[in-house]
C-alpha cells in the first residue's frame, strides 16, 4: 500500500490514470489498495467499460451538409450585419441633419427646479381652486373672459405638478388642441381679435412637445415612440381643424393661422421623417430551443399608423426544422425563406394611436431556426386622410417654411 491516508477519490483517480496510460491493469491497482478493493472494483470495471464503448460520431448526413449550412448562415448574417451598420450610419446622419435643420428654439425644460414647499403650496392652491369649482367653470373660459387667466394658470400648475417629460408632452398636446377649439369658438362668437394670442399659444405648446420629443433625455424609448405616434395623430386632426378656421377667419388673421398650420404640418413632417429615416433594427433573436424568431425593432422604428411593414425573413432551419412540413423550403439547399407580406395590424388595438404597433411579431417554430433578414418599412407615404387642401404646398426644404420664432420664455 502506497499512501494509505489518501482518500478514495484520489486513489480512484490514480488507478484510473494508471489503467488509461497502460501502466497497470485493474488487478494490479486493486492489489496496491487492498483496503479499497471492494469499493474500487465496480468503479474501475465501469471505467474500462466506458472506455470500450462504441464511439458515437455525428451522423454522415448531418456531417455532409453541416459545414456548408453553417458557412451559408454566417455569410448571410455577415451581409445582414453590414446592411445594419450602413443603415445605422444613415440614421445618425439624418438625425444630425434634422437637428441642424430645426428652427425651433429648443429650450430646456426647467422641470424639477422647484422646491417641495413650492410644490406643496401649488397643490394646496390647486385643491382649493378645485373645491371652489373655479377650475370647472374656468375650463370653458375663452380669451377675453374673466376666468381665462385662471384657466391659463391652472394649465401652468398642471405642468409644474407633472413629474415627467412624458406627462408634460401630453399636457402640451392637450393644451394645443384646446387652443384650436378656443379659436373655433371665438370665431363662432364673432370675437376673432383673440385669434392671434390663441394661435401663438398653440404654436408655443407644439414647440414644447417637439422639443421634448427630440431633446428630452428622460423619455424612455417606449415613451418616445408613443409620443411620436400621438403627435402624428393629433397634428393630422389639428390641421383639419386649423384649415377650417383658416377658411372662416377674417383675412387679417389668416397670416397667423397659416403660420400655425404650417408649424403643425412641419411638426408632423419632422416626426414622420425622423421615424422613417431611422433604421429598422433587423436584430432577430432566436431562442436556443425550440426555435423562435422575434423581430425586435427599436422603438424608433415606429411607422405611420396607416402603413404596414413587410417582414422579410430568411431563416436557416435547423436540421429539425428541415423535417418540419410546415416550413417551406426554397430551391436553395439548406435555406428557407419566410415572407410575411400580409401582416395586418388591427387598428382597433390602438384607437388612440398611443402605442403602435402594439407588439412586434414572434414567429414560433417547432425547431430552432437561425434566421436573418430585414424588416422592410413601407416607402414613405402620407396617410390617406392627410389634408390635401393646404393653403400653400409644403416647400421641400423645411428651413424655408418658418422664420425664426421668438421662443416663449421657460416656465418659472
Amino acid at each position: 500500500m502506497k499512501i494509505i491516508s489518501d482518500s478514495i477519490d484520489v486513489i480512484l483517480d490514480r488507478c484510473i490514470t494508471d489503467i488509461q496510460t497502460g501502466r497497470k491493469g485493474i488487478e494490479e491497482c486493486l492489489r496496491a489498495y487492498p483496503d479499497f478493493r471492494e469499493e474500487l472494483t465496480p468503479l474501475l470495471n465501469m471505467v474500462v467499460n466506458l472506455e470500450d464503448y462504441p464511439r458515437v460520431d455525428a451522423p454522415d448526413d448531418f456531417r455532409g451538409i453541416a459545414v456548408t449550412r453553417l458557412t451559408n448562415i454566417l455569410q448571410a448574417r455577415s451581409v445582414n450585419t453590414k446592411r445594419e451598420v450602413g443603415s445605422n450610419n444613415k440614421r445618425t446622419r439624418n438625425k444630425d441633419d434634422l437637428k441642424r435643420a430645426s428652427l425651433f428654439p429648443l429650450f430646456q425644460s426647467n422641470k424639477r427646479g422647484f422646491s417641495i414647499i413650492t410644490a406643496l403650496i401649488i397643490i394646496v392652491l390647486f385643491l382649493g381652486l378645485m373645491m371652489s369649482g373655479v377650475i370647472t367653470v374656468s375650463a370653458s373660459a375663452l380669451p377675453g373672459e374673466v376666468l381665462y387667466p385662471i384657466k391659463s394658470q391652472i394649465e401652468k400648475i398642471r405642468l409644474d405638478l407633472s413629474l415627467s417629460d412624458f406627462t408634460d408632452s401630453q399636457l402640451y398636446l392637450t393644451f394645443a388642441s384646446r387652443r384650436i377649439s378656443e379659436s373655433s369658438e371665438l370665431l363662432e362668437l364673432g370675437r376673432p381679435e383673440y385669434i392671434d394670442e390663441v394661435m401663438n399659444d398653440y404654436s408655443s405648446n407644439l414647440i414644447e412637445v417637439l422639443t421634448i420629443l427630440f431633446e428630452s433625455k428622460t423619455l424612455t424609448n417606449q415613451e418616445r415612440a408613443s409620443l411620436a405616434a400621438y403627435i402624428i395623430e393629433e397634428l393630422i386632426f389639428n390641421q383639419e381643424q386649423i384649415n377650417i378656421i383658416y377658411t372662416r377667419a377674417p383675412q387679417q388673421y389668416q397670416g397667423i393661422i397659416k403660420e400655425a398650420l404650417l408649424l403643425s404640418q412641419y411638426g408632423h413632417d419632422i416626426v414622420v421623417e425622423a421615424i422613417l429615416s431611422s433604421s429598422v433594427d433587423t436584430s432577430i433573436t432566436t431562442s436556443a430551443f425550440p426555435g423562435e424568431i422575434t423581430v425586435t425593432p427599436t422603438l424608433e422604428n415606429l411607422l405611420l399608423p396607416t402603413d404596414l411593414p413587410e417582414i422579410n425573413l430568411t431563416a436557416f432551419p435547423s436540421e429539425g426544422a428541415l423535417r418540419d412540413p410546415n416550413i417551406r423550403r426554397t430551391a436553395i439547399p439548406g435555406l428557407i425563406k419566410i415572407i410575411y407580406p400580409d401582416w395586418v395590424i388591427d387598428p382597433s388595438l390602438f384607437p388612440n394611436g398611443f402605442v403602435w404597433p402594439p407588439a412586434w411579431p414572434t414567429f414560433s417554430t417547432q425547431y430552432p431556426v437561425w434566421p436573418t433578414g430585414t424588416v422592410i418599412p413601407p416607402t414613405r407615404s402620407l396617410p390617406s386622410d392627410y389634408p390635401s387642401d393646404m393653403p400653400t404646398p409644403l416647400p421641400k426644404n423645411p428651413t424655408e417654411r418658418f422664420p425664426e420664432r421668438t421662443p416663449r420664455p421657460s416656465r418659472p
Partner: protein
Amino acid sequence: MPDTNQSEVSLIESAKQGDIDAFGELYTIHLDAIYRYIYYRINNAQDAEDLTEHTFLKAYEALPDYQQKGKPFSSWLYRIAHNVVVDYHRLNKDNIISIEETHDIELGQKQTSTLQEIVNVEEVQTLAEGISQLSSEQQQVIILRFLEGFSHKEVSQILDKNEGACRMIQYRALLTLQQILGDYFK
C-alpha cells in the same frame, strides 16, 4: 485533449478576422467531439445535431472575444456547448425523452454485423440514458474524462474547477453511474 496546434491557431486568427471558411475548417475539426458531448448530455440524436450547430454559431459570434490563454480551443468550445445544453434543459425541463423515443444514432466504427450494430446502438443509448441521469457536472466529467479521454487537468480547465474538486465529482459520478447501470454491465 490535444493542444491547439499552430495550424489551428492560424485558423482561429483567420476566423476572428471574419474568414468564414477558416471557421468552417474549425467546425469540421471539432464537429464530432462537440456532437458526441452534446449527444451524451441530452440523449437525443436529432436535437444533438441542432445544438451542435447552435454551439458553433454561438462560438463564431463570440470568437472576437476568444483569447487562448494557454487553454486549447476545444475547451472553449466545450464551455459554449455546456451553456447551450443548459439552455436546452431549461427550455425542455418538462420534455422527458425515453430511450424508445430517441432517434437512431450513428456509430463511428463501421460494423460488419448488423446484429452487432444493433447491440452497439442499444449500448450507447443505454449509456446516454444513464449519463443523462447524472448531475450536470458529473455528466461533463464522465463524458470528457472517459468518452473523450481528457486528463484531469484538462477536464478541470474546461469545468473551471480545481483538480481536487474534479476528482471528487469523478468519484461520485462513477458511483452514481454504477448504481444506475451496474446491472446492465454484469
